Every structure is written in C-alpha cells, then in structure tokens.
C-alpha cells in the first residue's frame, strides 16, 4: 500500500554502481544549479543509465536567506514584506497566510470587505502563478510560444496589483488585521474587465496544448504519482488533486471569505503530468468564478479590523495554513508575548512537493525530469527560504 516507505527516498547511492545497459558505470550528471529548466537554482544530481534515470537527489539551499530566522528579529509588522520574497510569483498568497496566522494568534478578525478584497487579490494571484507555471512548463517541454502568451496576459493582473498597492511582484498587499489600502477607483471595473478578458485567453492556451499530439505524448503517463504516495509524502495542491484526492483547504477548512463562494475543486484521475496540467487549467477557470462572485458581492465597510498600533500577540502558538497556488502554505508562529515572534516556521508547498520528484522520475528519461520539475511547479525562493 505504501510504496514510499519501501523505497530509499533521496538516498541516492552514488558509490555503488548500478547495473547499466553496458554494465559500465552509470552517468552522474549535475543538473543545475545553472540550468535552463530547473526554475532557478535547483540542483538535481541525476544518476543515469544512458538517458534512463536511475535516481535523483535534489541539492537545495542556493537561495537560502534565513527567512525564518529573520522573523525572530523583526516585529510582526516588519516581517510582513519578507514573506513576499518566498514564493515571489504568488506573493499575495504568502501575505494572506501570514496575516491570517497573526490575526488568528491575536484573535482579531479582518472585516468582511477586507476579506473580499483579499479573496479577489489572492485568486488573481493564483491565476498569475498558474500562468507563469504554464509558460515555463510548456517552455521546458519545448513549446516556446505559450510562455509569451501567458506573460502577455499576466500583465493585466500585475497591472491591477500595481494600481492597488503600487507593486507588481512583491506586493505586500495586506496588513495584519485587514488591508492597508482601500480599493482604488475603478478597481472593480478593472477586475470585471479582466474577467471578460481572460476566458478566451485560457481557450487560446488550451488550443495550443490540450489536444496537441506532442504535448499529449510528452505529458501523459509521465511522472505518475498515486494519491496514496502523495499523501505519504505530504504533497499538496494541484499535484495532490491531479492524483485524485479531493483536498483543497479553501473547501476543507475555509479561511478568508471562501466559505461564501460557490466553486468546484477540479481533480484528476491518473496523477500524471497531463492531469496536473488539466487541473491547473481548470483551477484558473474556477478562480475566475470565485473572483466574479467576490467582485459582485463585495460589501461596504471598513477595511481594517480593531488592531492595536503595536502588534503584541498573547503568549501562545498557532498554525494556520491556506491553499496557496502551489499547495498548502502553512505558518507556525510561537509568540512569547513580545513584539517579535519567538519562532516562526513556514510550511512551504514547493519544498514538500519537491520531495516527490525522485519517485516520480525514476525509470523515466532525462527529458521527463525536466517535464516533472516543471509540473511540480516549484519556486526556489520558497524551497530554500
């Protein structure tokens, strides 16, 4: 039942040679940290028999900045921008998780309008993250063009961000207790324009890829992982859902205003790269649904809850997790009653999902390693923190 426990996980034995086709030594290749397809500075040590992957080991830490340690030396408010630098393609989600965790710790709640703004922005960010994933994933598999299409359309989202909070990438959109900024005039119009603008674009992406023979051959039955293996490894997010496990924190333990919206959790069946592709494409459409409901039902009211000037949570600890675009993003905060966290720990989805790489690529070819790295949708800023 549990295949994972029987396999030597990530213990890539480079000393004892495996039997290769020619009974000669296997090829050991360093993929990265400088490599076009490792999405940053991931280094994968590949053990190959010709082109067949016998085993992999991920070497990470090239982008380590000690975010968790920094948190212990910053006040809660000061630390808020740092979380944007982890998963920098989904900075809004990171901020949401952090703010909600601290709010939970302090037992305050953001007002409903703030929650709606948060949902709109996070879902927009989810779309942006998936767009970036789609572009780079397709590029890894050799299709250049989708990258430019997705970047073109992602620009619309970034424009909304920019107008809202002045930043495009590392937005720092939320504050503990609500939002800092009221929506700008025309925010709702912009969002609605985007809602009308984007669905044809998804169709465009799908027209390029979904039924493309080469795309199908490159992604079907590649990097298959079962739901049981996913659960055993703690893999979350679209990867888990593509393996047929219906688990989405937005539904399972609703946060922000998600309980008020009607949407579906797309799941796959085979757990292969193609299913993950389909799941993410469907998630984009679902995100649009959520945004549409949110923007139509956005309540009036304050955007900031009753939060003291100096954030000083009571002694205690809290774990709060949200469904980031890449999976479960969790913050565990221990407070000693001072203005700085005593300890802050992040559960990054990318880091956990990356652990599935080895069992997904064993027995596949080098080209599939690239596809699988792409389909895992990792961001090294988040893996290394």
């Amino acid at each position, binding site marked *: 039942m549990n295949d994972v426990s029987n396999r030597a996980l990530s213990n890539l034995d480079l000393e004892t040679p495996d039997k290769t086709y020619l009974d000669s030594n296997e090829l050991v290749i360093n993929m990265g940290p400088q490599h*076009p397809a490792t999405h940053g500075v991931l280094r994968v040590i590949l053990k190959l028999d010709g*082109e067949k992957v016998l085993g992999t080991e991920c070497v990470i830490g090239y982008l380590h900045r000690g975010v968790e340690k920094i948190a212990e030396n910053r006040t809660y408010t000061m630390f808020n921008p740092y979380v944007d630098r982890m998963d920098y393609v989904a900075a809004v989600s990171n901020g949401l998780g952090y703010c909600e965790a601290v709010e939970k710790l302090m037992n305050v709640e953001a007002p409903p309008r703030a929650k709606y703004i948060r949902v709109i922005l996070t879902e927009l960010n989810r779309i942006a993250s998936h767009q970036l994933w789609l572009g780079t994933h*397709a590029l890894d598999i050799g299709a250049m*063009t989708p990258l430019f299409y997705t970047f073109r359309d992602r620009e619309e989202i970034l424009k909304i961000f920019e107008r809202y909070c002045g930043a495009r990438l590392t937005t720092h959109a939320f504050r503990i207790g609500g939002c800092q900024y009221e929506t700008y005039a025309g925010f709702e119009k912009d969002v609605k324009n985007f809602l009308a603008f984007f669905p044809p674009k998804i169709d465009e992406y799908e027209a390029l890829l979904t039924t493309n023979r*080469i795309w199908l051959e*490159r992604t079907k039955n590649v990097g298959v992982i079962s739901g049981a293996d996913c659960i055993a490894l703690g893999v979350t997010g679209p990867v888990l859902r593509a393996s047929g496990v219906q688990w989405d924190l937005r539904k399972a333990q609703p946060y922000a205003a998600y309980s008020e919206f009607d949407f579906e959790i797309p799941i796959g069946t085979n757990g292969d790269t193609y299913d993950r592709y389909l799941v993410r494409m469907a998630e984009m459409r679902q995100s649009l649904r959520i945004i549409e409901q949110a923007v139509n039902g956005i309540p009036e009211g304050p955007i900031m809850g009753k939060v003291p000037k100096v954030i000083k949570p009571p002694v205690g600890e809290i774990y709060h997790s949200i469904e980031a675009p890449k999976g479960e993003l969790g913050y565990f905060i221990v407070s000693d009653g001072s203005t700085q966290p005593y300890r802050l720990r992040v559960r990054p989805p990318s880091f956990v999902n990356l652990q599935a790489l080895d069992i997904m690529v064993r027995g596949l*070819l*080098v*080209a599939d390693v690239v596809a699988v790295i792409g389909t895992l949708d990792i961001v090294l800023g988040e893996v290394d923190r």
Partner: protein
Amino acid sequence: MPNFIMSYLGSTVTPGEAGNQFWALIYVLIIFAGVSVAVICMNWIERKALAHFQVRLGPMRVGPHGLLQPIADALKLMLKEDIIPSEADQFVFWVAPLIGLLAAFTVYTVIPFGPSQAVSDMNIGILFMLGVSSLGVLGIVVAGWASNSHYPLIGALRSSAQMVSYEVAMGLAVVSAILMTSLNASGTGTLSMIGIVQAQQQQGVWFIFKFFPLGLIAFVIFAIAMVAETNRAPFDMAEAESELTAGYHTEYSGLRWSLFMLAEYAAMIAVSSIAVTLWLGGWMRPFPNLLNAPAWDFIFSLFPGLTFLGLAAIAFVGTARMPADSFFKIQRIGLAVFAALLGFIALLLLAIAVAGRFADASVGARFRDGIDYIYWFVLKVAVFMYLFIWYRATWPRYRFDQLMKIGWKVMLPISLGVLVVTAIVGVIVS
C-alpha cells in the same frame, strides 16, 4: 571580355559538364557567398517571425527593425574569445564544426538552381547529396564527444541515433521519387538532380501530385524526416535547450559556435532544396507546359522584379510609419536607403525581364530565364524555411524514445509501403 562573361551567363550546360573549372570555381564562390547571405537573412527572418508568432517585436535596435542585427551578431561572435575547454580533445574539438560545415556546403555543388545553374550535374547527384548530408552527423557526434562533458555527449548520441534513423525513411522516400523518373519511353530513370526536374517537366506533373496520393505521402515523409535530419523543432533533441542546456554545442562559443549555426541553417536550406527538386518541380515556374506561350514567359518573368518591388514598398511603408522623433532619424534614413536598394534591384530585374522579352538574342533570354529559375527555386525553398520557423513556434519537443518510435515504427514502414506501391503502380502504368 564581356562576351566571355556573357557566354558563361548564357550557357546551357553546367560548368561541371562543360569541364570548365574556372567557371565552376566562380559558381562555388557564388553559392558559398549566397548561402551565407541566405543564412544571415534566415537568421533575421526567423527571429522576427518567431517574435511575431509570440506577440513580441524581436530585434529592433540594431538598424531599422533590427535589419543589421545578424551582422552585429556575426561580428560579436567573430570577436568573442574562442574557448576550448582544457579537458577537451583539442584537435577534434577544433575540427568538428568544420566537418559539419563542409558537409552542409558540399551538398550545394549538385543543387540545381536551374537547368544550367548548378556547379555540376553529377549523374549520381541525389546519391551524392544523401551521402554528403549524412556526413553532417559526424561533425555533431565528434563535437559532442570532444567536449568531454556529459550534456554534449548525450546530445551527440541523441543526434547521431536520430539522424541515422531518419536517414533510412528519408532515403526510401527519395527512392520512391526516383522511381517515378523512370516512367518515360525508355524506361530508364536518373539519379541526376537536373534529370529529376526535367523528368517532372516531361511528365508534366510535379512528383508530389504523381500517383496521388503516393507522391504526396512520400513527400510528407521526407518533409518530416528532413526536420529530424536537421535537428530542428520539434525534433531538436540534440540541442534541447531545456534538457541538455545546449546539447552537443554546449561547450562551444564564439566563431566555432557560429559555424555550427551556419552549418545547421545551410543544412536546412539544402534539404529543403532536395525536397523542392524531387517533388516540387525544382526551378520550374507554375504550369510550364500549360502556359507556355512567350507572353506567359514574360508575365512570369516579371515576378522577381515585382516581388522586390513589393518588398521595397513594404520598406517604404515602414519608413513612413517610423515615429517622427529625431531619435529615429538615422534609422529612418537607413530604412529608406534599404528600400531604395530593393527598389533598384526590382527595377533592374524588371529591366532584364523586359529586355529578355524584346531582345531576340539567346544570351539575354537565357540570362532572364536563369533569373527566373533561381527566383522560383528560392521561392519554393523559402516556403520550407517558413515552415521550419512555424514548427518551432508551434510545437513542443518530442521525447527521444518517442522520436525513435515514430522514426522506426511509423515512418519507415510507411515509406517502405509507399515505395512498394509506387513500384507496382509504375509497372502497371508503363
């Protein structure tokens, strides 16, 4: 002296056939220069076309609309340090790009741009082309091996397996076209490139339409195999950027790297030329037998000039649409000059066409015909070049094992079947 030159221009046979080595040398030089220029143009066109596929502009800075970009690139590459890794096999590393280049350019000796516009009309022309183009793989294999690095080695092994595999399907497709050349009164076919085109002329049909759909199938197989043969997307496993960083030329830089690029693009043009020669009637203009009145000749001979006129018009429109900022002044002037140059060429070609129509001299008419032949040939090849770019913009990359599977399990059986059926049909028809 002019007479001497004109006699070259008006010759009805290739220099090789005439045994004129001086003339042949000139031809070789012209072709070498022409192909190099074509590669440079191709480079620019590819970058621009690809950019427009991908909703961006492509090179815009060096020269108007980046027209001088390839030249700048070439200069940059020539001036870059030529790094040879210390652990590499120095000599082989040095010689590898030359092998590829040599193979790619040698092919052009038998490509017929016209009935006499070829260096030589070898009677085993197509055999020679297949053989020499298959030598190109040696350069890649040796380059990958000599780099003494893993990625290039994998790239080299991939590309050699790929090229050797697809050569089989390609060769069989070619044979089925050659079979069609023997469908004449004497029953003897030909391997000569010029002979193949002439056979299409005699039979009054391009081989792509012969025994429909047999010729078409063979042509499609060749068209796929030639993409694989030149390591272009979606079969660019050997230099798969996202997998092997740059494949067999990962360790190359500067001039030596640019030689690989030159060889690759030259090979693309060469295989496209083979396809055009074998199936698309080579240098022949559309409907040469049907519309054979001198008036038709004249109308079709206007095409080259009109094409250049169109290009010049586009360039002029571009000049007019340049922003009226002083910042763009130089670029505007440059584009205008370019447009003027194109316009001048267009006028020259039109003049030649008109002169050919009204001058009864055979030399002038042949000169005009020569330009015609080259024009149509290049036009057909250009379609293929555009297809190459289009493929690259549209498709993801195949995986290596899938590629081999297609090569051996799909293309080879189909091409064999086409060959057999073509032979049977040919026997029945004749």
